[in-house]
């Protein structure tokens, strides 16, 4: 993206000019998130969640590295080392609770960020690559969170690992050998714990790398906006600094208040009590459930209770669970409407608020419940809608919908009229 009216980085101080010559990192930052990056002037608070997600990643890495100084990834002492952190390590309880609740906060923020993308058509051309990289980040986050939850080696850690690694056994022919290879044994044990620790330490840095690509890919076309109309002229944009640094700062404050309320006053509200029981391979918990952020996918996994066309139910569940995320990769090509934003797509909007959102909420609720009636029937209906929504409804709606008239430009949408752009008084703009 090269908006011609973007402010230019002009270092004055001698040291900054020297830096600019040798390693232009300040110039990079200025052009990426400083005054050198023009952003649509009408972004609402739904656009705060990307920055908040980045903040959560930094917080997880900082608390995680500190935890790793005291945690022992060996099945015999993992649980005890976690308690050692909680009791003996100075401020260890804070690091542990910040990290555990930080994972929940990370997923809250990322889900809001993704649903912003669903509603405003952020996945559409020319931002398909941003979207694809984002789905990759989400998959990496899920892997990281799953492995992290196994580390304390509580009952839910062990049995959750058993269930999820057991899914690989559903793959025909090669499933069981793959499962044994991944676990390093026949069941989750020290080999699995140790390698999960290694990968859990590695993946956040992979996520950081993909985030760099994600932001780079975004900065080629520039940010989208709630109207979905692309930037036409200078009056459509504001420099990222100070406008959006200030807005993101306020958003960060609100986020931190809610986050610290959880960490300091209700740190176990989102946790499962069973994970305070040391792992016991001989004692199955009454209910095996993952953390709340996996519940919708867990509900989809458990919804397939009957064999279908010679495909065993277990394999159907696994395929559906992965398909429910892989479907997101194809959104730019499933939803062909030339109108981006849900604001101007009345039919799409109805299916979004009265179809997709309720089905995801129902799936989440069922995922945390016992796999029995009526939750099974509820999750089956919600799963059916979920797949219909992305794979059948969206393509059809985008083909037959009559969208509302779009504003001429962002300036018109915000300020009421855009005489300068209509009369062509501004310099040539990106389309």
């Amino acid at each position, binding site marked *: 993206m090269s908006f011609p009216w973007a402010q230019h980085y002009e270092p004055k101080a001698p040291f900054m000019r020297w830096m600019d010559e040798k390693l232009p990192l300040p110039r990079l930052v200025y052009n990426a998130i400083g005054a050198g990056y023009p952003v649509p*002037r009408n972004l609402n608070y739904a656009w705060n969640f990307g920055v908040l997600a980045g903040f959560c990643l930094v917080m997880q890495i900082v608390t995680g590295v500190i935890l790793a100084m005291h945690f022992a990834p060996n099945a015999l002492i993992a649980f*005890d080392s976690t*308690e050692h952190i*909680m*009791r003996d390590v100075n401020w260890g*309880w*804070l690091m542990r*609770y910040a990290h555990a609740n930080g994972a929940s906060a990370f997923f809250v923020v990322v889900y809001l960020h993704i649903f912003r993308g669903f509603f405003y058509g952020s996945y559409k051309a020319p931002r398909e690559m941003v979207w694809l990289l984002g789905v990759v980040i989400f998959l990496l986050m899920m892997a990281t969170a799953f492995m992290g939850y196994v580390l304390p080696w509580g009952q839910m850690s062990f049995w959750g690992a058993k269930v999820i690694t057991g899914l690989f056994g559903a793959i025909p022919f090669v499933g069981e050998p793959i499962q044994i290879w991944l676990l390093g044994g026949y069941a989750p044990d020290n080999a699995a714990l140790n390698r999960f620790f290694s990968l859990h330490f590695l993946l956040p840095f992979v996520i950081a790398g993909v985030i760099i690509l994600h932001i780079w890919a975004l900065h080629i076309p520039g940010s989208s906006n709630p109207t979905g109309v692309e930037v036409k002229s*200078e*009056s459509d944009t*504001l420099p990222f600094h*100070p*406008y959006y640094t*200030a*807005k993101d*700062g*306020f958003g*960060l*404050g*609100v986020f*931190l*208040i809610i986050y*610290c*309320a959880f*960490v*300091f*006053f209700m*740190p*176990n509200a989102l946790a499962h*009590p069973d994970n*305070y*029981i040391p792992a016991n391979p001989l004692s199955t918990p*009454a209910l095996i459930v993952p953390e709340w952020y996996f519940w919708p996918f867990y509900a989809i996994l458990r919804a*397939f*209770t*009957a064999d*279908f*066309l010679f495909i065993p*139910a277990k394999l*159907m569940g696994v395929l*559906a669970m992965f398909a429910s995320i892989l*479907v997101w990769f*194809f959104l730019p*090509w*499933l939803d062909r409407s030339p109108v981006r934003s849900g604001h101007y797509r009345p039919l799409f909007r109805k299916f979004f608020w009265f179809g997709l959102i309720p089905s995801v909420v129902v799936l989440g609720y069922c995922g945390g419940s016992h796999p*029995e*009636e*009526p939750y*099974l*029937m509820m999750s*089956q*209906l919600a*799963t*059916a809608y979920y*797949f*219909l929504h*992305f*794979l*059948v409804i969206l*393509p059809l709606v985008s083909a037959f919908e009559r969208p509302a008239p779009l504003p001429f430009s962002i300036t018109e949408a915000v300020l009421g009229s855009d005489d300068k752009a209509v009369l062509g008084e501004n310099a040539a703009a990106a389309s």
Partner: protein
Amino acid sequence: MVRIIGILIGLFFTAAVLWALATGAYTVASQGYLTEKTAETEFHKHPRELKLASDGWGGHWGEEDLAQLQRGYQVYKEVCAACHSLRHVALRDLAQLGYSEAEVKAEAASWTVPGVDPATGEATTRPGTPTDYFPSPYPNDIAARAANNNAIPPDLSLITKARHEGPAYAYSLLTGYAEAPAELKQEFPGFETPAGLYFNPYFANLNIAMPPPLHSEGQVTYADGTKASVDQMAHDVAAFLVWTAEPSLGKRNQTGWPVLGFLLFATILAYLAKQQVWANAKRRKD
């Protein structure tokens, strides 16, 4: 092309899940009920409410509450420690309950911990020191099962965090032993509490292997003179177990207030700054 394949895949998964729904609905219709009613689902009781100093957003242990923790420790030592270990708590942690250094040393010495004879190297026992952890009453799990009708008494260090509504659960369980109600025997005629187990509606499957540990008033003679009713002892030991599960709870709550206060102040400032920065953007037409 993508959309056609997408529609087909969508219909495939939808058909598969609706087929599962149909078979499930058939099962429900033929068996006549949604979920089976069992004695557990019908007669299990949720924990009764328990008020503790550590409750709520301001919860912490002040000077007066340390007295309750010391009473709870006394109940643990004289009643529970016969069968239940407390392996994550160190004897030095007792200093947090308000004991002086000398008292902590004396308390530690009153516990017998495994040791090694310094002359011969044989396994032996010795009096505890503050650096030791609370000793387990049994040398291993097999001994624990053998002494308790094949049930292992769980370690109590984390019990109030390892159970839903833990503190209230511990209190209700300890005071909840009773005869099975008549309605239960009417609705489930085959129900009986097996020999060696005891009926307790607060326990998950209603029959617990632990005999009522707090059975008579005055079982423990409190050092501070408080009347030791069953309810009082259960109350005190529940408070003690909340402390063993998380000794830093008080500090956590007390640190939280200044943190939230600062964040509120900083967020208000950030909001005002944001308004000031954006004031131009909303008014100016450029």
